[in-house]
């Protein structure tokens, strides 16, 4: 447990040291930079955000982000700058567009489908108990008959 915790803190420390290695201009808010960076994808190592990545391109892009922030650009302007060069892919949160509509609506369609299937199953099950009961009493009678027959047979022995 202690080992695990030590490992985690080591990981965190490395991550932090990568991110804050760059010297920030005084008018750049670190908090804002972190938030913005975490929404941007590193294109070299695609499962990392700009904030997490140590790839050379990610560092360059982070540098650009910092410079633009220092120049007073808004988050939207900075995002647009990157999208113009690298496409929507650079954003972790894809915008709502005709190509991405399935991405946004798909889960809800699946949810609806699951609900419909669930409803059908539940409905069918609710019709089952009566049949099951009839069957079980039938089985019980049969069992009792067998039991009695068996008892009768053993008494004869």
């Amino acid at each position, binding site marked *: 447990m202690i080992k695990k915790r030590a490992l985690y803190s080591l990981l965190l420390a490395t991550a932090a040291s990568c991110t804050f290695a760059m010297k920030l201009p005084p008018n750049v808010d670190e908090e804002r930079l972190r938030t913005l960076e975490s929404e941007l994808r590193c294109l070299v190592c695609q499962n990392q955000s700009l904030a997490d990545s140590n790839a050379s391109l990610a560092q*360059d892009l982070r540098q650009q982000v910092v410079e633009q922030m220092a120049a007073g650009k808004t988050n939207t302007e900075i995002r647009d700058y990157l999208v113009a060069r690298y496409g929507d*892919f650079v954003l972790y949160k894809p915008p709502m567009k005709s190509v991405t509509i399935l991405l946004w609506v798909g889960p809800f369609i699946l949810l609806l489908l699951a609900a419909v299937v669930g409803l059908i199953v539940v409905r069918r099950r609710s019709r089952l108990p009566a049949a099951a009961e009839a069957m079980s009493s039938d089985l019980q009678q049969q069992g009792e008959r067998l039991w009695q027959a068996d008892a009768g047979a053993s008494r004869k022995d």
Partner: protein
Amino acid sequence: MKSLRLILPILILAGLAVFLYRGLSLDPRTLPSVLVGKPAPDFTLTRLDAPDQKLSLADMRGKVWLLNVWASWCTACITEHPTLLDLSRNKLIDIVGLDYKDTAEQASGWLKGNGNPYTLVLQDTDGRTGINYGVYGVPETFLIDGKGIIVAKQIGPMTSEFIEQKVLPLLGKK
């Protein structure tokens, strides 16, 4: 109802198989380029072969040319090098090299050792021009027409298919 019960799982499996199969053939590393069909971003860069001279995008106006992003540290660039050398021997098209995040000495040494397919080489030492072109993995090659529009882009090593299917038709050779 019974037959539907039997067929439905098979249909779902088939649908899933189609999606998964398509997923296999897609390369997640090649991104659709937003720059294809758009004007090439401007630049003014120092020439590697003539450090006292600079070249801008405007200087290439009226020509169909290739902008090949490479670097001496780039291992995949060695893979595409024979293709570029072949293309340069035919003298069909100007190949401008963009030496991405590299030093002049190393780049010159690399070209001396491996051969130089480039009409001229530009130095993008800080990688700014690369960023403007949306470069995220070297090598990348842009096919630019006489009006300065990016017609096609190859991510990763240059292939003879790209030359045959994109470059030659634009030159009117095929």
